[in-house]
């Protein structure tokens, strides 16, 4: 059975259509690289998935069970966790408190210690405010905060935005270890090739729909570029 199924989802900001009848699914243990230009609807899709936005139609299913739409707690309890674009850590909370507040949803292998093992630097900085950390360390804290909920699918939005290539490499190395624990991933990244390298499949969004989907290993760069800029339509 599919782990996560997205069935004909549409969503809009007021009158602006952001998602327009979008469907795809993810298997257990699978990693999907979700790519597309600005405004293609990637962030909106992630927001709908974790309950921050209510879709105007369609259904999200986890293990075949429909998820209550627009309910962040239900999404968290069902095993969806988001690493938001721009990290969005809580500045009034210490790093450790940021991790602790993520813990409420589910129990599992991602204890505080396990997260500190994944990102040892966070243990050293656990008493500090996120503002005192570098961009890369903040991204690690954001991933840690999402992992603390022990998600079945980890949703990562613009994971390398604003990070140096070296730090990006570190972040991706950590994601590979998350993969190894059996967690499914949806990775959105500006750097398409970077995201595709970690993924089993690549899906390209354009104008609120998935316009192109392929095994990551076989994805053709030229076809991908056309899909990305909407030249296939």
């Amino acid at each position, binding site marked *: 059975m599919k782990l996560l199924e997205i069935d004909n989802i549409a969503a809009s900001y007021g009158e*602006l259509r952001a998602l327009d009848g979008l469907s795809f699914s993810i298997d257990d243990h699978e990693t999907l690289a979700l790519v597309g230009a600005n405004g293609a609807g990637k962030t909106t899709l992630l927001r709908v998935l974790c309950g921050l936005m209510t879709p105007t139609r369609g259904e999200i299913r986890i293990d075949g069970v429909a998820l209550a739409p627009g309910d962040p707690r239900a999404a968290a309890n069902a095993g969806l966790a988001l690493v938001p674009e721009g990290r969005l850590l809580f500045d009034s909370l210490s790093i450790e408190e940021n991790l602790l507040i993520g813990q409420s949803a589910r129990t599992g292998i991602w204890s505080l210690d396990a997260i500190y093992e994944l990102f040892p630097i966070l243990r050293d900085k656990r008493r500090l405010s996120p503002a005192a950390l570098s961009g890369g360390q903040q991204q690690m804290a954001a991933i840690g905060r999402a992992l603390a909920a022990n998600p079945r699918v980890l949703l990562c939005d613009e994971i390398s935005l604003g990070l140096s290539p070296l730090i990006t490499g570190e972040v991706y190395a950590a994601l590979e270890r998350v993969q190894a624990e059996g967690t499914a991933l949806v990775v959105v990244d500006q750097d398409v090739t970077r995201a595709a390298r970690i993924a089993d499949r690549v899906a390209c969004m354009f104008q609120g729909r998935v316009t192109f989907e392929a095994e990551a290993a076989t994805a053709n760069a030229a076809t991908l570029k056309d899909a990305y800029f909407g030249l296939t339509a």
Partner: protein
Amino acid sequence: MFCEKGNALLRATGLSKSFNGVPAVASVDLDLDIGESVGVIGPNGAGKSTLLGLLVGSLKADEGRLIMEGRDLTRMAVHRRVSAGIARAAQIPQTFGRLTVAENLRLPAVFGAGLHGAEAERWVEEVLEMCGLAELAGTDAEHLGLLSRKRLELAKAVAARPKVLLLDEVGAGLTEPEIEQIMELVRKLRDGRAVMWVEHIPFALRGVCERLVVMDKGAKILDGPFEEVWADPDLQAIYMGVPDDEVA
């Protein structure tokens, strides 16, 4: 295309803006000329919206200057820049819901273009006609559909008789056939003014803009004839990342 470098219609030099110490636009130079239509693209966080804000005046530049026809606009408020000849159509239509379509256009015609009485009326008629809104003239804007409101947003900017028309993702949220209609409209609006169109759907710019500017991380990376920039490998690198074989 030849353009005399000494006297551009609008010249931005070294425009910079930071938010909480993080640079959003870093030292951007940009010239715009009458008759030109320039597309601006760039990934998330490239600084396109910030640049637009600096040109329109809703944001105050930390550094740099903005000169239009010899006048320094750098410190000028939004409403005075409109009179000076810079108008913007916003991404989310900012139409006046409880005014009719014609009244929506009278405001920029009177306060932006400085027209009065019958002259203003004639100009509003003309803009209505040009933007395909003539039949909706008496409808309250809040009863319009999205495409019509996008048209009205464009029409409002045009009604201010700008020399520089800035378009902020006016295609966002529309279907492809609807975007074609907007493209058609923008083509008509190019005459006699400079058009700068920020859009994240590059295909919309193709066929409307002959010049393309690419921004990334707050800086202007590429600027030149559309097809030339479009074929530039740097463009692909910015959007798609560097392919594996080149890393190796």
